[in-house]
């Protein structure tokens, strides 16, 4: 009984710590290591570097990183093409349809290196840490299940329910052209 309680406590502690911890500074070697992802040859899916798992996937589960990602989403003009996830010139995220797969590493690669059909590369505009934060947030927009760490609504005009009320796909009105086939991968 006591062992159960202790292990429960420890589990809660570790889960809580990582979800709420604010890692304000990433050491340059760690940042460099985070940059070396491996991607499948077709650009869809791949594997993040070992250190990403060693850090316990901070950009998917940590509330602070996700909210920083949300800040970057509007700071770096993502809304111009993707709106609040509804899409526009660029594909939507809310429909849960990922042209390059739902893994964070694909999203990271899309932001860092750009993609055909108009997605620019942000390699020279953002740091690796920022790209990871943004990728984590973008993944949250189209998440299939609710993340406890997902951000709430912004203090602005609301165009859709906030990320923490996901999963987004359920709440998204796909409209007349649900999937932009022309924005997909190059065959």
């Amino acid at each position, binding site marked *: 009984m006591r062992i159960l309680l202790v292990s429960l406590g420890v589990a809660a*502690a570790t889960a809580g*710590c990582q979800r*709420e911890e604010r890692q304000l500074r990433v050491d340059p070697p760690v940042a460099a290591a985070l940059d070396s992802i491996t991607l499948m040859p077709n650009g869809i899916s791949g594997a993040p570097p070992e250190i990403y798992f060693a850090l316990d996937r901070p950009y998917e589960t940590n509330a602070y990183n996700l909210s920083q990602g949300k800040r970057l989403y509007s700071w770096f003009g993502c809304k111009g093409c993707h709106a609040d996830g509804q899409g526009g010139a660029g594909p939507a995220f809310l429909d849960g349809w990922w042209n390059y797969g739902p893994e964070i590493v694909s999203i990271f690669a899309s932001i860092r290196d750009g993609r055909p059909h108009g997605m620019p590369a942000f390699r020279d505009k953002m740091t690796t840490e920022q790209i990871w934060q943004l990728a984590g947030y973008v993944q949250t927009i189209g998440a299939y299940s609710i993340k*406890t760490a997902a*951000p*709430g609504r912004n203090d602005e005009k*609301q165009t859709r329910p*906030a990320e923490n009320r996901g999963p987004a796909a359920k709440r998204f009105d796909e409209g007349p052209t649900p999937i932009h086939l022309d924005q997909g991968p190059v065959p």
Partner: protein
Amino acid sequence: MSEVKPDTRDSELAPPALAAALAETWRTPVGLWGVLAAVDHKIIARRYIVTAFAFLALGGVLALLMRLQLAQPEARVLSPDRYNQIFTMHGTNMMFLFAVPVMEAMGVYLVPLMVGTRNIAFPRLNAFSYWIFLAGGALLWIAFVLDMAPDVGWFAYVPLSGPQYGAGKRADIWAQMITFTEIAALAVAVEIVVTVLKQRAPGMSLDRIPLFVWSMLVTSFVVIMAMPAIVFASTSLILDRLVGTHFFNPAEGGDVLLWQHLFWFFGHPEVYIIFLPAVGMVSAIIETFARRPVFGYLAMVMALIATSILAFGLWVHHMFVTGLPRLGQSFFTASSMSIAIPAGVQVFCWLATLWDGAPVFRTPLLFVIGFIVTFVIGGLTGVMVASVPFDTQVHDTYFVVAHFHYVLIGGAVFPLLGGIYYWFPKITGRMMSETLGKCSFWLIFVGFNLTFFPMHILGLAGMPRRIYTYQPDMPWYGLNMFVSISSLVLVAGFLVFFIDAIRSTRVGVSAAENPWDAPTLEWATASPPPSYNFAEIPVVNGLSPLWDQPGCLMVASGLRTDRRELIVSTVAAAKPQVREASPRDSIWPFWAAVATTVMLIGSIFTPWAVVWGSVPVAIALIGWFWPKATPEDES
């Protein structure tokens, strides 16, 4: 135990037999069951007091950590993130987990004794209140240990605490912790109001109620009127964060200042919720140690009531720099200044009491003298910040930090410590040490003033509040170092107090019924009081019953001993109406608290927790109120 004969009257039994019969009827079971099911107001209040002092100690550790960080410019003892959590925790902990609960707990312990009844009204609600309070405190501190404590200040201003800028569950934990402590406080307020209005000893008409009881009554009404504001505010904050309502979103018709209005509509009366019970303690202590009734009883009561009414008319003075219309600000300047009048009335009456009295310099009185010296400073700086132009220069600076510590430590903690020294023999049956008491008083008094007085100057020198550090080129270094070192003196004083209190529970000199020759009813029973408080219900025909007939207590007989019986009397004249039953111990308040805790914590994560969580709450409440076949249910 032998079978108790039904309908046994106290008049049929000789004193030892009467005591045995009452002890059997009113006893709290032993063991874990007894701990969880206890409803005796003294047991609950003792738990409440000990828990609140534990939170005081924890909050003090936080304060020390902050002083360590601020002792030097650009120190790196704490990260800004940890510092923000710590100052938020310090404020929240001291206000919601120490000051309000400890004052109410003193009321829970003393009010039934002072009005001459056998248990508080709604004793099971009282038990529930303690468990909920404990759960709220645990929630906050466990979150702190997990590095997810709130970091948005004890005032949690939106938008910083809102959905966009308050990442994670930190602000939700703060908001829900508020709900826990407010439920606990509201429950106690209801108990105290009903106890004072309906359970007073026969003959204790309104003009014979001890001043401490008056202060608890008035405080409880302030709690009832003020706390709903913060419950609604914190709930709407969680709603904004969790389900996307727009109460505080200006882009969708909400308003940022709405939060501040709601918060301070509660937040300012909150100060008086802490201060008024302390005022009552001061009156009780002065009366006993000046050895005469407090001068101007009616004026004192009127001052208490006036304070409680004015307390609701000055919340805007926390918002003088938010750009509200000037006319409104002038009104709030006038109302904020005017609350100094009832405060002045009370101070003058205490001075008059001491002037015409024959003071005995024991530790409780020392703390009260320390209270007058420091509280007057806090009150006068309060008058200063009530002025709009003055406030624009000192608002959110260390001047205000100094001001409210003078009011809250000087105005509330000093009387509380005096009160602990004063009532400790009643609560534990043993005296605290006079030597250690004087030692702790002087350390606390000197340490407090050395710590907090310089903060006035720091504020005027431009040091804002809530900064985790400052730069070396600011001229604040010397004073900050001085303050940090002085705080060690203050801590030493509290350590002596804690050592004295813990030591005295075991080795203190045994206390008689009335060791201080005090005039009020709590001293008319054994120290510590038996579970039934009074073997026979006292009858009162004066303001100072133990002074009016020294050595002899007038009582009434005719109550049953086989069931928990007490007297319900009329509101104004306290004429006896009913021999009402008081509920027995029950495990259900504990289960109800557990169920409520699960529901409230769950609702931080999903709104559906309110739906599924309310089912166990309902079951627990039905179990609580479902009649059991006990003598108390007879009619």
